[in-house]
């Protein structure tokens, strides 16, 4: 078996070819986001173009920088040391890219260039770090390898310091490893949403009497709008694995599971491969790195259930049963998977651990705030110009992400609300855009920072409609075991539906409050947090609810029970609009068109094709 030093030396040789490429190296970022816009086709087109031209170049697959808006991205590194990232390289653009970037030694395809991987501009291309999306990220720690290394190469990970933390930990007493992670040391707490101190959770497991003990990585990232775990698993899978091995060593766990949601097939593929590679190098299995400590783990692939992200739901699911949350106590540390002591952490939590061991607790806590040390990854989506994933120190104001990184709402729109932490995380008025990104300020506003999803909402959205969506989600994903959650979410959906349909009653606001109050007694966090968005919004957007209930009007003209489509005026688009209508609701009389309201389903397709003539009006408008 090789020592860590030998593994590192071997890996550095492989990495050398990336750092100082002997010939041009073309790397395509292949991840779920980039695949969605054709990265596989881009990769294939590059291979063909390279062979067609007989170029002496290497083609590689890398991960994701987090710049979803710029995908598919391609990096071209040359022997002269220049490394340039190109954006939106679809397969059709590959010939142009290769022609302009590789026909001459110092060629650059200016049209597609996004940034240079260097502190200074290269051949007129600005440094990547100067892009608005990158500039807010003072220090990328968890994402240090994302986009840079080949996620399918363990050598790349090792060459950049990977498994050094594990090697250090294995030479330390368990107690010292726990100290490094603890509040006295780095101060790491769980990133899944509950923000519980990690070392304390680990101590519960260590102190449990029964054997074997299990270590579980929660990658069930079910919050719609959250995709930070996915980015990590697809772009730097070994960081999570290393963190779990260190955790197992500190607690005496001998086996582990990584629970990955059904929607992430590429994560499963890359994590499986990473586990195999780690096993081959003696980093998993019997006597890891010759230390005498043994640990192994496997992947469990979910099958589409949100509550399996709740730790006891996840445990039920691993146990071959319905993924229903259990009543605590007993806590998982006493009785978890197969009634054995178990620790569950989010995979982002684990990814912090190798960094703490490698660089020390002091380094770790040098960024962030007094109460919340280190960095956190966030995914940005919704009404913004740039969708993506980034990493910032705790305490960073939301504004820097919304306006700095993401470019704010589209032209002509203004920020209305921010939705953190998934459908159960709540909804904050735009006034809170200067809130610091850490759990306490969000909690004070009655919301949750959660696991890292931030959905940005502009003034084209209806808050009642969005809350109806959040409650529908909570209802749909309720496991159904406790009637508080099952019935509570159903009632909330019914009330919000009638408000959105113009049948709201003045007493509905108080009824919603009453329900939310009762739901605090639900069995698990799912039911307890389900009313969060509704509660936030009946405070912050009460006028909008009242407009729906008393005025029978949806100010944003979204709730389809309160709007009507009408044709006034003429447009050359009307014949096409009539043809597209899925219910044949647009009737033609001579040169005039009208909408048969009985048939119209208010899908808005006609308005897309004849915007000058089709208008959305209030269904119950009064003429005064």
């Amino acid at each position, binding site marked *: 078996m090789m020592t860590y030093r030998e593994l590192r030396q071997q890996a550095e040789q492989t990495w050398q070819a990336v750092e100082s490429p002997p010939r041009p190296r073309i790397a395509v970022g292949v991840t779920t986001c980039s695949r969605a816009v054709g990265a596989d086709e881009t990769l294939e087109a590059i291979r063909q173009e390279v062979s067609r031209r007989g170029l002496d170049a290497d083609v590689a697959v890398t991960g994701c920088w987090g710049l979803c808006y710029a995908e598919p991205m391609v990096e071209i590194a040359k022997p002269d040391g220049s490394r340039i990232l190109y954006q939106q390289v679809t397969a059709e653009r590959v010939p142009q890219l290769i022609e302009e970037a590789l026909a001459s030694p110092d060629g650059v395809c200016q049209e597609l260039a996004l940034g240079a991987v260097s502190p200074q501009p290269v051949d007129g291309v600005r440094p990547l770090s100067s892009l608005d999306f990158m500039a807010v990220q003072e220090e990328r720690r968890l994402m240090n390898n994302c986009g840079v290394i080949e996620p399918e190469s363990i050598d790349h990970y090792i060459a950049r310091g990977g498994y050094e933390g594990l090697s250090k930990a294995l030479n330390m007493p368990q107690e010292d490893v726990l100290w490094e992670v603890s509040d006295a040391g780095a101060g790491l707490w769980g990133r899944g949403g509950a923000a519980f101190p990690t070392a304390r959770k680990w101590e519960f497991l260590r102190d449990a009497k029964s054997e074997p003990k299990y270590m579980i990585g929660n990658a069930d990232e079910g919050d719609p709008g959250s995709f930070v775990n996915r980015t990590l698993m697809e772009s730097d899978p070994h960081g999570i694995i290393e963190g779990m091995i260190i955790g197992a060593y500190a607690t005496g766990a001998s086996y582990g599971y990584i629970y990955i949601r059904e929607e992430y097939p590429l994560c499963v593929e890359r994590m499986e491969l990473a586990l195999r590679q780690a096993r081959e190098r003696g980093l998993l299995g019997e006597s890891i790195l010759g230390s005498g400590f043994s640990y192994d783990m496997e992947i469990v692939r979910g*099958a589409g259930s949100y509550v399996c992200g709740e730790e006891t739901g996840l445990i039920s699911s691993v146990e*071959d049963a319905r993924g229903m949350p259990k009543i605590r106590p007993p806590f998982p540390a006493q009785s978890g998977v197969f009634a054995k002591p178990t620790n569950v952490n989010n995979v982002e939590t684990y990814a912090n651990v190798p960094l703490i061991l490698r660089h020390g607790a002091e380094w770790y806590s040098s960024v962030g705030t007094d109460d919340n040390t280190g960095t956190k990854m966030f995914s940005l*989506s919704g009404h913004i110009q740039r969708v993506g994933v980034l990493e910032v120190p705790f305490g960073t104001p939301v504004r820097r992400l919304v306006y700095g990184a993401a470019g704010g709402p589209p032209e002509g729109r203004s920020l209305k609300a921010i939705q953190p932490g998934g459908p159960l995380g709540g909804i904050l008025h735009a006034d809170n855009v200067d809130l610091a990104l850490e759990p306490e300020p969000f909690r004070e506003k009655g919301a949750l920072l959660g696991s890292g999803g931030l959905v940005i909402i502009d003034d*084209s959205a209806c808050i009642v409609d969005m809350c109806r969506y959040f409650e529908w989600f909570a209802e749909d994903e309720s496991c159904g075991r406790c009637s508080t959650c099952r019935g509570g979410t159903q009632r909330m959906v019914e009330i919000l539906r009638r408000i959105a349909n113009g049948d709201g009653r003045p007493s509905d606001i108080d009824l919603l409050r009453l329900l939310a109050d009762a739901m605090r007694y639900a069995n698990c966090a799912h039911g307890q947090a389900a009313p969060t968005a509704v509660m936030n919004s009946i405070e912050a957007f009460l006028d909008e609810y009242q407009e729906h209930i008393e005025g029978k009007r949806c100010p944003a003209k979204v709730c389809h029970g309160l709007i009507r489509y009408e044709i006034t005026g003429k447009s050359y688009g009307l014949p096409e609009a009539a043809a597209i209508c899925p219910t044949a609701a647009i009737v033609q009389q001579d040169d005039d068109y009208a909408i048969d309201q009985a048939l119209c389903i208010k899908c808005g397709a006609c308005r897309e094709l004849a915007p000058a003539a089709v208008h959305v009006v209030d269904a119950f408008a009064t003429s005064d």
Partner: protein
Amino acid sequence: MTDTTKTPPELEQLLADLKPDNADLLAVLHRIQDAYGYVPPQAIPLLAEKLHTTPAMIYGAISFYSEIRREPPARTTISWCSGPACRLKGSENMRRALEAVLGIGLEESTDDKAVGLHLVQCDGTCALAPLVRLDGHPKGPLTVSEAIRLARELKGKEGQP
């Protein structure tokens, strides 16, 4: 993809290494679904026997997960993303239009089993919102009229014998 004529002996092969208390059920359900396109009812008693539990417990687990099918899927599945970024960009309008064109609701298939509509949760490809996945391949951002044309094309294509 879907072969309903396969008999239990072949199913048994897929279940050969199944053990109780070993976190095997989800893996084997995926394996069966990959082979058959769904989990056929014959699998339930076999799974129960292998995992030392009752068919009711197995059925309970299978029916809990929205991505495990108990019926063969349609020849083409349009998966409609229910996530918040899609919602903000008009996915509800798109859903109503798709349902109207196909004459079916979510989790249903057209009578000829040509096209099915399936609700999926956000997988974070929000740069493409609003989107659908056509047999797993994302298509977006889609306007409502583009979604209508897509559904009509799929329906029309399959209408020809």
